[in-house]
């Protein structure tokens, strides 16, 4: 039991990752508002960032900047570098998603998915 608790507590970063991921996905699944969906997507992506960053963290390590002092412990910089790219990708995705949401709002007058689907249903010729 103690082992279990220790293993759960010891991997708290992964638990956070899982919780954030599920939260994000839940929002995408359950909310009909397109902006909220994008927000959910962002939370989901953030969980991925967290996953990578915590993966590269070395306990007691500092940022991998060469200060000239000997014997310093660095965190693994590679996941951080990767996640920088992933953040940029995330921003780009959010921007495109928001732009699409704006265009949807302009052409449909709504960003609620069910309203839009209703419009589709009525305007589609049989």
């Amino acid at each position, binding site marked *: 039991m103690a082992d279990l608790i220790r293993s759960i507590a010891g991997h708290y970063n992964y638990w956070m990752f899982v919780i954030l*991921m599920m939260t994000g*996905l839940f929002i*995408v699944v359950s909310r009909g508002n*397109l902006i909220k*969906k*994008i927000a959910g*997507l962002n939370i*989901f*992506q953030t969980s*991925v960032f967290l*996953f*990578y960053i915590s*993966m590269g963290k070395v306990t007691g390590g500092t940022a991998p900047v060469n200060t000239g002092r000997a014997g310093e412990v660095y965190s693994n910089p*590679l*996941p951080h570098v*990767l996640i920088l*790219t*992933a953040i940029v*990708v995330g921003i*780009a*995705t959010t921007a*495109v*998603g928001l732009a*699409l*949401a704006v*265009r*949807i709002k302009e*052409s*449909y007058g709504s960003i609620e998915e069910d309203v*839009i689907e209703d419009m*589709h249903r009525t305007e589609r*010729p049989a």
Partner: protein
Amino acid sequence: MIAGATAGFIAKHLPVLVVLVPLMAAPACLITGNRHATWAIATLASWTSFALTVALFIRVAGQGPLSYSLGGWAAPFGIEYRADALNAFILPLIAGIASFALPYARGSIGRDVEPRQQNLFYSALLLCLAGLLGVTITGDVFNIFVFLEISSLASYVLVAAGGGRDRRAFKAAFDYLIMGTIGASFFVIGIGFLYMATGTLNIADLAHRLATAPADRTVRMAYGFILVGIGLKLAMMPLHQWLPNAYSYAPPAVTAFLAATATKVSLYVLIRFLYTVFGLDDPFEAQTLKLLVMPLGIIGIFAASTVAIFQNDIRRMFAWSSIAQAGYMLTGIALMTPQGLAASLVNIVNHGLTKGALFMAVGMLTLATGTSRLSDLRGIGRTMPWTMAAILAGGLGLIGVPLTAGFISKWALVSAALDAGQWWLAGAVLLSSLLALGYVWRIVETACFGKADETRVIEPVPLAMVIPAWGLLAVSLYAGVQPALIMEGANAAARSLLPHLTGVGG
């Protein structure tokens, strides 16, 4: 002298130039405001990169795999571009389709994008091309993710470009974006797990370490996430729902380009991960292919073909047919034999060519009549016999009638299934051809035997659309008559991948 030096330069940097040419042409298009100039740049870039991919294919076929390290950092540490029999086989398809899609876009894009913004459209198309080429050629798994996202973001924009004509394109692009991002995020989580397990991102290095280390839960998690993430991008059956809308509301040139390349590249990534990275030496991985991917592929073939039969919109019908075709490719991959893999690879290329030509022809039809609904196209075969002939020729390819490219793919898949002792699969593939016959027949029936609407106005189709569509169709027909080159390429690729496979299958 100069020519020699140039040739040497190109030969030395071939793998990176393939991606770099469209990647640099994209911002150049952005700066050049003039739409004719941007079109010229884009076309030139795509044809150049097509020539480069062909050169790369010839070189790899002759001299074996080619490795290129970016920034001078050697392979496991720096990013490596690596061309081997597999991706050198896929690359010409991507660049080639783009080379046909760009002239086609010049004729058709005026309907969807206003002249002032066409340079943005072309640069998005080039970015998408560069992304797809990058995914295919890179030897670094994280780099795959980055290029995948470059191409995906560009393709969301390209799909949304159809919104000028039909606002549903916006919603389709939005759905595509949400789903694509979830897929890509799953993929990147999978890569994270792989990195956790091995500490490397280089494909060859990963393959090596995973082959020597026993597979643990982390690797299996990685496998699951990557399978689902890529499955989403390639429209594996229950994850396909983004595709029909995206393909039916995007501008015709975009649909033709994406249908022929985007899902194909995702399939390539799947093959790369399954056979090179994971190598299927963990029984779990083989088990998943057998218990999950194979059934999903077959369900996809039948369900999507059945849905296609009942569609009223031609583009939507062919979009569903694309999902069914993805099913064929998945079953080939899941056979886990060299023949099955080769069958999938042949199908990737042949279906890419056929579907590209088909969507181009349908685009011509849509442009001329202003509709893609079958019920509005009765008797169109009499007013537009040539376009209908092109659609019919492509449709025969989807059914798999002999002398078409589709026949070669089906033949390869059926004989692979027979070789693997999967009689029922061969039967299922043949049976499913009847479904394809069903939806192609509906088009022929409506177009050729329906009562024509006398008041219909037919607008002239620009030559810029006609020539690429027929060109691509001719290529696909040629691939049906002379399948040797594609078959050999696919066989070489399959052989190069399967030494990894030990003790599985049968």
